[in-house]
């Protein structure tokens, strides 16, 4: 085990927390680099507020994508659902190829401005990696292990819960990791339709020609995505079966 202080999670986490809570410390830097912009630090909302709102948006969308994605994968890998496999794959692929901005444009008339269309777009966009990895993970369970599980007298549900899902977990989690990381970055476009995210300073900065705001929002969203990715990678190592 590495010493804790060498862990990138710690350093990225500290940097993220510092910028989140006390961006003000960088004010002289921004004053020097962009003399014309006042105020130097984005102040329409606190960065902490943006963080909670951004986090909630991604958590709800990715949480739903994870539950639905795994459920779909389980369904199409059962004998009864195998006919739907291609359909589910195509549907998930369409969700991914459809640009989130287009989903937003279509969802706003139905769901109104704010976080709801953003959640919708993130959910659809995040579904594919989870569905695909979950199917691959479940199908990757060796045939001999499945045969043994049913031959020992495990019921289908017991075989799924105790054997298939635990063995598929690392591959499923890799899909969740990709999905969540992409989701954190993509959520910023929600600010175009009024959701509060780290995209808010970016859009404000672009609209008002205030480059420091763009930099502040971009730094925070990048660190947020990297930190989450590192933490999920660590979780995957803990959950991996031995060998």
């Amino acid at each position: 085990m590495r010493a804790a202080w060498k862990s990138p999670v710690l350093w990225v986490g500290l940097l993220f927390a510092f910028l989140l809570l006390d961006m003000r410390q960088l004010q002289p830097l921004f004053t020097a680099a962009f003399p014309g912009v006042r105020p130097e630090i984005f102040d329409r909302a606190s960065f902490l507020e943006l963080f909670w709102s951004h986090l909630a948006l991604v958590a709800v969308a990715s949480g739903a994508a994870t539950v639905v994605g795994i459920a779909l994968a389980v369904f199409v890998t059962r004998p009864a659902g195998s006919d739907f496999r291609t359909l589910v794959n195509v549907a998930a692929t369409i969700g991914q190829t459809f640009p989130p901005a287009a989903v937003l444009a279509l969802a706003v008339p139905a769901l109104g401005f704010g976080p709801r269309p953003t959640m919708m777009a993130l959910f659809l966009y995040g579904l594919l990696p989870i569905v695909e990895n979950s199917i691959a993970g479940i199908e990757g369970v060796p045939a001999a292990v499945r045969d043994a599980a049913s031959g020992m007298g495990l019921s289908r549900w017991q075989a799924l819960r105790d054997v298939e899902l635990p063995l598929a977990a690392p591959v499923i989690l890799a899909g969740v990791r990709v999905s969540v990381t992409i989701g954190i970055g993509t959520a910023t476009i929600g600010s175009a339709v009024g959701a509060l995210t780290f995209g808010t300073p970016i859009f404000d900065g672009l609209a008002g020609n205030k480059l420091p705001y763009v930099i502040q929002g971009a730094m925070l969203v990048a660190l947020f995505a990297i930190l989450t990715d590192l933490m999920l990678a660590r979780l995957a190592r803990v959950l991996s079966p031995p060998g």
Partner: protein
Amino acid sequence: MIEPMIDIEHVSKAYDGRIVVDDLSLAVPQGAFCVLLGPSGCGKSTTLRMINRLVDFDSGAIRVGGEDVLLAPPEALRRRIGYVIQSSGLFPHWRIGDNIATVPRLLGWPREQIDARVGELLTLLRLDPAIYRGKFPHQLSGGEQQRVGVARALAADPDVLLMDEPFAAVDPITRDALQVEIARIHRETGKTIIFVTHDIEEALRVATVIAILDKGRLAQLGTPIDIVENPKSDFVRGFIGAQGIGLKLLSVRRVGERMRAGESADGKPISQHATLAEALGTMTEQRRDRLPVADGEGRVVGVITLADLVR
């Protein structure tokens, strides 16, 4: 007449119109070590898997311990039948102890009883519980994994053990050792064993009764000696191999059948359960024409000579 432990009556099975098991009837008495032997595609594995309903049969009936297998839910049936497969099928994310405990846990045994049983089984399979109980399957050799597979199948003390080419994927030396072990476990536990293989030598070594299958039908049923001495058809004769019948006979007869009781000789004793082929090998190796014979406990009970082998 005593009810057979496994009774297969006029069972047929077809996949997409291709018949794999064709009106097969086979009664296996309690305590038998029955080997289903045949070339690939003869229906032996399918027959085995129909007994615990991993494969559904189209017609006929199968009874285990007098009870129709279709009456109970398949999970309940499988929990009272041991099952061993070729590539062990151990659950890679569970420790050896938990793997062996699979069926007892499904049956809801109390924790202490399960722990005691796991220790007992590891010892039976000659794996030290203190070392092996906490290991993961990938830390074991192929032969050790296969032993654990057998222990797992025996865990809930089933009357019947189904083994589907259990030793086909291990190296020849390990396979020999495992064959000796399974024959010993059969003698010690008195389980009824159905064992699928395509390897005639393996069948002759372990079986008390051999069922040779050809295209889903029973080609011949008999003891190993019957099969080698009186093959009923060209198929059986071809399958057991026309070459080396004499050597095959040596490998199906046991030292105990030919020894002279009460006499004794010098040298390292050979077990009375060893085959005549093994006795011949030992004599050649030690350059002796007389060997002392020991019983299961290692006591010298007689002598076997070179002349006794060809008598």
